[in-house]
């Protein structure tokens, strides 16, 4: 089968997207413009990631789609249904280890990614400089000249005002010592997973018509002062200990805080597959309840 004519996208669109992805891989972190197509979902609902996934999929692929760590949320289910309906032969899975292409909205799976896997991110705002410089032409010049001082000033201002960096997600990171990227709204917890990752990470912004990439084994460094190191979420209890997942007991994963109807809160793994996997490994029957 001709790899350029498969699935929802026409051959021209698929070729163009693949070329954009190749260029993005060749220049890690550089935002490659492309002609974002109309999709049967609205802009802002993951059209960038969807187009990349559509350009990559072949009948041999196994697909996983997650939204905020969950395989069964509305966005994930609808995207998966659409991809399976338009790409015949592609199989779906919820297991991170089995997938060859993982389309994600705002999380990186807890399970370590392996070589050969491709992560596809849905990106709302591809440019990390957007929060400090409204003019796109000036932002392009700043990227070209490696001028990221205003992002550093943002960290400085946070440290002065709050005594810590108050960026919870979209934390800017320098890729391969050159371009600074917006790693999509993944939490700070996930950023170290991009550093020297075995998998290829592709970021697609459909509304902004940009693709960028973190190739396998690439150095990804969060912006941080030498004397104020980058920190991930601690999930600390009042007594100083760490919250654990009430379902699987994990105390080394990214947790969701869930308010209870009668008051109080409980904590649960955000990555559904990871939590299910731990439960299955613990239960005698080998299956998640």
């Amino acid at each position, binding site marked *: 089968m001709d790899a350029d004519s498969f699935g929802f996208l026409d051959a021209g669109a698929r070729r163009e997207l693949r070329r954009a992805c190749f260029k993005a891989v060749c220049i890690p972190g550089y935002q490659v413009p492309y002609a974002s197509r109309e999709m049967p979902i609205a802009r802002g609902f993951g059209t960038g990631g969807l187009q990349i996934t559509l350009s990559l999929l072949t009948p041999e692929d196994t697909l996983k789609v997650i939204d905020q760590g969950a395989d069964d949320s509305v966005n994930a289910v609808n995207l998966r249904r659409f991809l399976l309906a338009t790409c015949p032969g592609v199989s779906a899975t919820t297991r991170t280890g089995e997938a060859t292409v993982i389309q994600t909205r705002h999380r990186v799976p807890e399970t370590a990614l392996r070589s050969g896997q491709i992560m596809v991110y849905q990106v709302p705002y591809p440019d990390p400089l957007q929060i400090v410089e409204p003019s796109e032409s000036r932002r392009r010049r700043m990227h070209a000249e490696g*001028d990221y001082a205003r992002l550093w000033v943002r960290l400085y201002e946070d440290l002065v005002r709050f005594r810590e960096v108050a960026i919870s997600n979209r934390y800017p990171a320098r890729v391969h010592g050159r371009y600074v990227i917006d790693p999509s709204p993944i939490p700070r917890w996930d950023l170290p997973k991009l550093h020297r990752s075995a998998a290829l990470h592709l970021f697609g912004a459909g509304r902004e018509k940009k693709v960028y990439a973190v190739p396998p084994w690439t150095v990804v460094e969060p912006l941080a002062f030498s004397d104020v190191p980058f920190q991930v979420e601690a999930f600390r209890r009042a007594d100083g200990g760490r919250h654990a997942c009430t379902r699987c007991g994990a105390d080394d994963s990214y947790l969701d805080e869930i308010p209870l109807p009668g008051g109080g809160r409980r904590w649960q793994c955000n990555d559904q597959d990871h939590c299910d996997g731990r439960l299955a490994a613990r239960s005698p029957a080998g299956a998640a309840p």
Partner: protein
Amino acid sequence: MIDHAGEPQPILDAAGLTRIHGRGCPDCLALTGDGPGTNICPRCRSVVALAGVSFRLWPGEILGVMGESGSGKSSLARLLHLDDRATAGQAWWRGEDDDGSALRLDLAATDGWRARWLRDRRLGMVHQNPHLGLNFAVSAGGNIAERLLCAGEGSFAAVRRRALGLLARTEVPRGRVDHKPGQFSGGMQQRVQIARALAPQPSLLLLDEVTTGLDCSVQARILDLILEIQRETGVAMVVVTHDLGVVRLLAGRTLVMRHGRVVESGLTDQILEDPQHPYTQQLVSAAL
């Protein structure tokens, strides 16, 4: 700056700097200037902002650039700060590279990376309008931090310490380091601009009408501050102004500009006491 033969070398050596806004024509320079009394070419309507400006600036020297509005003073400052490109001519800057080795660069022909490096580490600019020189969305300390971070400083504590030190040096109360420039008076905004410009310890500081719009007592304090800083740091300065009092107080030598040309240059005292060019005579007599 001493060369191998032991001769002092200028920090800046400009020769024939020309800037024409518009498509230009072969007759632009001939049909504009002091004789025709205009800097707009009657043939192609291009604006000759600078024509053949040449001067030398020595280490630790303050050079005044004087003239009426539209004479090309600010255009010259913009060229020297690499905010604009010369149409013709050269401006050789001498200094040190990051590794301390001697470096000689033509400011009129630097590539983007070198221009950014020079602006970040070797040049400083204080604008007449604080909105051009300061980021009003971040604090005074943040404005200074931006320059330090551009110059490669990576420690938060060091950035903070240096920002406080620079603000104290420019007589901005330390307690206001986290206030935004919009909360400051005009004179204090200029002092924050000076602190910001000095942050990377530049070898050349460009001052574009820094006291314009300030009242007399604030002007005097700013000028005293500039002189003190120059004596302490030995930074070379180009002071662009239309105010004869400013050049008299600050500058050892002065260029007088009109229609984009240097019509007279020399020691400031000589120019102010014994002006030779009719335009300079007119300027001096108007001030008196």
